[in-house]
């Protein structure tokens, strides 16, 4: 604000008449918006103008604190006096028309005493936001249900109330040259690795774009490899997930107008973790985590395996199964590759249609698509029964991944794999798998290895990523997070194991 005060002397715009200011604001900024409001108060031979856009501000407060104040006191006003008398903080002294226009666009009210050399603006933004509601994309059975909203203010509020820690740091960035958006880098200063923070800060600072639409768009701007199909930062709408990761020493980025937050750096296996694994008991949590990994593997392999086996390697199918397979495939006129592609495509269609349609219709579509078409397609001899089972199983398995982006990646990956299997059998499948492994090994998240607990191999980090052990035993943070303090808490005092009867 000091700098603004200095500028006062250099003002080229003020003093001017109220009409001039109004005209300039209207023409220069609001293209004669009909919503631009102006109130002129004439008092003691002075003319005071109040400008705002009526739906962007809290009008009641303006009437109460500004207009009422000015009208009730019979004194000679000037800008300094206004600042002293009006009981609101955040006054800004503006000397340029452009600055005033920008302030008004952000929900400020501008007060100008005619003839003065500067004018004063107050922020009264009226932001409409929904109240936090239940998580939609990452729903939990167990544990906190609250999800982020589109407002940065309430998201920060949720985080601050949840993390009662003085080292919680948040840095502000404004990104976007057409539509500037506030972006916050949030981390725990005591825990987050300095290099990570610097790297993220550098990326946010250097980012040049016209508009950050959403936090998942922001990740596409700042991620390490834009050409990979795998997401390299975790986008979550769950505050509890975010706070858990912050406490593990990771960073997070929040974007205004976006209901989700970004977590980085992240490794491949984090996408298969859910906070629910933490809320359930450790053995259940471990089981479910491992099950998700197996599900991912099955989702990617089952259909290609079917295609490869039926196209090239009949001999691997056991005799008993071969009979029923042959029976159900005897009516199918297509090669297995085409058959599998048709069915996979159908499932994707049903999923996409279900997601686009309104909820009630979507459910009906699911039933129609799933049961009716499924039944009909077999009877019509389009595909075999067994393939329907396999495709349904692998589609189901792909939805167990908590992260929507990772789930989509896996579903899409199936298609090239099926084609490879149809062209070159097992060789094609293993070629694709090797390619994927090498690809994942090459990825980095915020310059940290993506395939972390496996390579670089850290056996201790297998806890917290692939499995879970009882909380009292796991008193160290994952080493690959590079947190400043790796110890979560001191070990519980060693209780000596008793003999059977003592």
């Amino acid at each position: 604000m000091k700098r603004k005060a200095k500028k006062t002397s250099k003002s080229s715009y003020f003093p001017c008449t109220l009409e001039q200011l109004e005209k300039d604001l209207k023409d220069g900024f609001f293209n004669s918006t009909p919503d631009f409001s102006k109130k002129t108060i004439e008092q003691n031979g002075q003319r005071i103008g109040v400008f705002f856009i009526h739906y962007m501000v809290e009008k009641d407060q303006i009437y109460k604190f500004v207009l009422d104040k000015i009208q009730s006191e019979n004194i000679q006003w000037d800008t300094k006096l206004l600042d002293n008398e009006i009981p609101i903080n955040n006054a800004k002294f503006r000397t340029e028309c452009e600055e005033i226009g920008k302030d008004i666009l952000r929900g400020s009210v501008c007060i100008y005493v005619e003839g003065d050399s500067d004018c004063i603006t107050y922020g009264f933004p009226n932001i409409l936001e929904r109240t936090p509601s239940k998580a939609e994309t990452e729903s939990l059975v167990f544990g906190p249900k609250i999800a982020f909203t589109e407002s940065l203010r309430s998201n920060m509020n949720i985080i601050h109330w949840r993390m009662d820690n003085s080292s919680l740091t948040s840095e502000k960035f404004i990104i976007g040259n057409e539509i500037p958006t506030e972006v916050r880098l949030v981390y725990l200063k005591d825990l987050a690795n300095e290099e990570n923070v610097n790297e993220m800060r550098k990326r946010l600072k250097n980012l040049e774009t016209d508009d950050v639409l959403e936090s998942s768009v922001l990740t596409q701007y700042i991620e390490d490899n834009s050409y990979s199909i795998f997401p390299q930062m975790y986008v979550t709408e769950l505050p509890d997930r975010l706070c858990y990761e912050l406490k593990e020493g990771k960073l997070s980025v929040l974007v205004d107008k976006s209901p989700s937050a970004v977590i980085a750096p992240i490794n491949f296996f984090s996408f298969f973790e859910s906070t629910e694994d933490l809320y359930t008991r450790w053995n259940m949590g471990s089981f479910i985590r491992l099950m998700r990994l197996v599900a991912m593997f099955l989702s990617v392999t089952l259909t290609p395996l079917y295609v490869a086996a039926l196209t090239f390697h009949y001999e691997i199918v056991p005799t008993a199964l071969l009979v029923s397979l042959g029976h159900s495939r005897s009516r199918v006129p297509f090669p297995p590759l085409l058959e599998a592609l048709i069915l996979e495509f159908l499932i994707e269609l049903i999923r996409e249609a279900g997601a686009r349609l309104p909820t009630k219709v979507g459910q009906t579509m699911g039933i129609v698509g799933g049961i009716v078409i499924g039944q009909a397609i077999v009877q019509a001899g389009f595909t075999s029964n067994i393939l329907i089972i396999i495709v349904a199983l692998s589609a189901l398995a792909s939805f167990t991944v908590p992260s929507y982006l990772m789930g989509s990646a896996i579903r899409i990956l199936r298609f090239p794999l099926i084609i490879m299997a149809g062209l070159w059998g097992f060789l094609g499948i293993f070629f694709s798998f090797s390619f994927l492994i090498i690809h994942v090994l090459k990825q980095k998240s915020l310059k940290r290895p993506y395939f972390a607990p496996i390579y670089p191999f850290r056996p201790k980090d297998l806890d917290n990523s692939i499995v879970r052990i009882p909380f009292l035993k796991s008193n160290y943070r994952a080493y690959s997070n590079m947190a400043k303090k790796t110890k979560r808490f001191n070990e519980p005092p060693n209780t000596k194991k008793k003999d059977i009867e003592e």
Partner: protein
Amino acid sequence: MKSLSVPKDNQIKAAYLIIAIHTVQVGVGIAGYPRLVFMDAKQDSWISIIITGLILSLVIACMVFILNTYKNQDLAGILCTAFGNIIGKFFSMIFVVYFLVLFLSVIINYVEFVQVFIFPKMASWFIGLLLLILVWYAVYGGIRVAVGASIVFFLSSIWMVGLLSKPISLIEVRNYLPIFSTPWKDVLKGVLISSYTFLGFELLWVIYPFIYDKKNVAKYSQFSILITVVMYLFITMVAIGYFSPKQLEQKVWPLLTMFKVISFPMFERFDILAVALWIIVILPNLILLAWMFSFTCKRAHGWKQKHCLVGLVIFSLGFIAIFDDRELINKFTDYTGQIGLVLGWAFPFILLPFAIKHRMKGKKKNAKN
């Protein structure tokens, strides 16, 4: 030649050597190895393998000694320091060619597996192309990705050893007899024939400057040799017990044949899968060899590593396309083994006197200072 200073981001821990050296050793050779060693050493093959292991341990010790003497140097650097720039570069070039030969021998052998077991009519160059794409993609990521690939591929293929439990249950103890009846000469022949299968430990020459904790190199590389020897011993012993002696001599790839008896409720013939899965076993081989080739090439000539890699890929592709005859492949593999005998096994001992001299010099200098 300057010594290498590797940025910390590119360094790897010595512990990874356990798996990296092991995976570069185990590859196509192991599939036919039990037969080869059995043809010479008969039921006393285990003695041959253990002797090979002991010699290898000595070779590794010698290599580590030399590498520790010339701190932060790779093979090309050491050769240039020991023999002077021109002869050193010449020798490095020989090694570059040697790595290339190893690389080619692995790739053509695998192409042959695929043709014999899965796709008899698939063109050799196409199978080669699939492999070379992967190799190119992995080596492009640098040493960290190359080592990472070897670790992940190792973890995702090592379970196949467990599948041998089925052949183990069918072992005839009689097949192991008689013991100690093979003449010493034949046992030593078995050692000689083993040399090809154990090749690949030359990785140590090139990877050494990239290792973060150099004092552990000796420990971990010896450990890795131990794993390899134990694995070869295990597989050979199972093969000898499982096949009758005459049968074993006729099976070109006893290991793959042993996989034939394995079947699961959902999977009748495992050997088909095993051969396709073998791609995971040989990829670390190819990736690390291609990395060794391109890096040594870069060090010796100052060419760009990228260009060396692309050259390797194109050359190999042409080579595979021309070279698809069983007899030729066999001969090529035999010759590779013989070259390996000199460049892999004997070379460290040739270099040893130079290293000792270098070390003495260094000590004298220290004493003077």
